[in-house]
């Protein structure tokens, strides 16, 4: 009985709550700045997706990446699916592009020494915006 109860309680922790611990574990907002640099560098260097960033203002994009990572890491944010949808509209993005970005998210977390369990909870959050990004 106890075992069952305990299991149920664990499952009640939402991905957001789990990810929030990643945000704190990484060191909060200052760590996000370092993470954004690593993440954005990976994205720009990837031929599968780099063309989408050719004409974009790097500083503005950097700020957006920070907002995205803050959200994915469970930090304080005001994520709106509407913004994400509007921002990616008309870009004809496919699963390939989404997966490329997700790969770099994982790579960034690995580089920062984040454990697999925490990476999984961050990826869960990131995947939750997939339909918005792909405008599905």
């Amino acid at each position, binding site marked *: 009985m106890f075992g069952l109860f305990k299991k149920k309680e664990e499952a009640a922790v939402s991905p957001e709550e789990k990810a929030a611990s990643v945000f704190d574990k990484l060191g909060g907002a200052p760590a996000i700045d370092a993470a954004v640099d690593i993440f954005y560098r990976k994205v720009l260097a990837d031929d599968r997706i780099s063309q989408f960033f050719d004409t974009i203002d790097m500083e503005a994009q950097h700020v957006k990446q920070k907002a995205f990572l*803050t959200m994915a890491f469970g930090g304080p944010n*005001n994520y709106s699916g509407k913004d994400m949808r509007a921002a990616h509209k008309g870009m004809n993005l496919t699963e390939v592009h989404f997966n490329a970005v997700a790969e770099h998210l994982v790579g960034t977390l690995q580089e920062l020494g984040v454990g697999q369990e925490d990476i999984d909870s961050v990826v869960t959050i990131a995947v939750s915006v997939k339909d918005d990004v792909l405008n599905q």
Partner: protein
Amino acid sequence: MSSISSWLTKRLPSKRAKTIEFAGSTTSLQENESVLDGLLRAGHQIPYGCRGGSCQSCMMQCTQGDIPAPAQQGLTAAQKELGYFLACSCTPQSAMAVALKPPAEKVIAPIIDKQQLNDDVVQLRVKAELAYRAGQFVKLFRNGVVSRSYSLASVAGIDDYLEFHIKRVEGGKFSTWAYDELAIGDEIALEGPSGECFYSVTDPQQPMLLAGLGTGLAPLYGIVRDALLNHQHQGPIQLVIGARTSEQLYLLSELQALASSHSNLTVHCIAQHVTAAPRPIEQANIYEFCQQLVPDCKGYKVFLCGADSFVKKLKKQCFLAGANMADISADAFVANG
């Protein structure tokens, strides 16, 4: 400026009270209320977005009082130095006076010197009192109507004038007038300064890469002297100046003199087409040159000035080569003459 701050000091209530002075009115913050929430509650129009310190839409400037550290998280050293902060992440412990944009000063001042720097570029020196950081830019007016922004090549505390390098753009309403007609003794209206591309003292040992094309040298000439002469920067500095042809490069002897009196400064002069023989000018592509000069930009403070396309391309190159985004300062020129 000083009259404004003394006026503010008089008007600000005791330090304990968490009041916010904005646009001529005072708002008292509630417990744990952010500056953004307080100002919005008071009915002010403040642009904002994420409310989480990420989107930077609610960036404001503090003109009086202390900024709590979390309110400047993620801002560049230059932005911090200018007193910028994010209103959504700012829950102050004492009174602050804040503004949406830095108040621009407008002054009218005489031209005290005009020199030809190359076939297309003149150097203008203006005798004006203006508080600025070397590398910032100023709006110059022709007859109070047509205005263009030009970077300052002078350094506050070293030069007792403002210096601008003006390239004559055929058909350009301002530059042709400044180049052809403006004379020593004439008066010119200026407004500013603006811009965040300047030297901030974070680490005096940090290696620096400064690269500029054409009159992109103007802000860099200010920034490099500010770093060396006002702030005694100790780390190695690579200054790369480029032009299409070797005749277009200017201030070469001044730069060589600066390099010979500062062992940590190396000046590299490069051009796509080298015609003039004896000068220390290398024929090279500036992007490849910078890549070979500093293959790993990790830890570098980078300053890039010149045409928009040049700045964008080199910014990306330096970032991919390891420079932190917050360590890259850029001033991109708009070519409307």
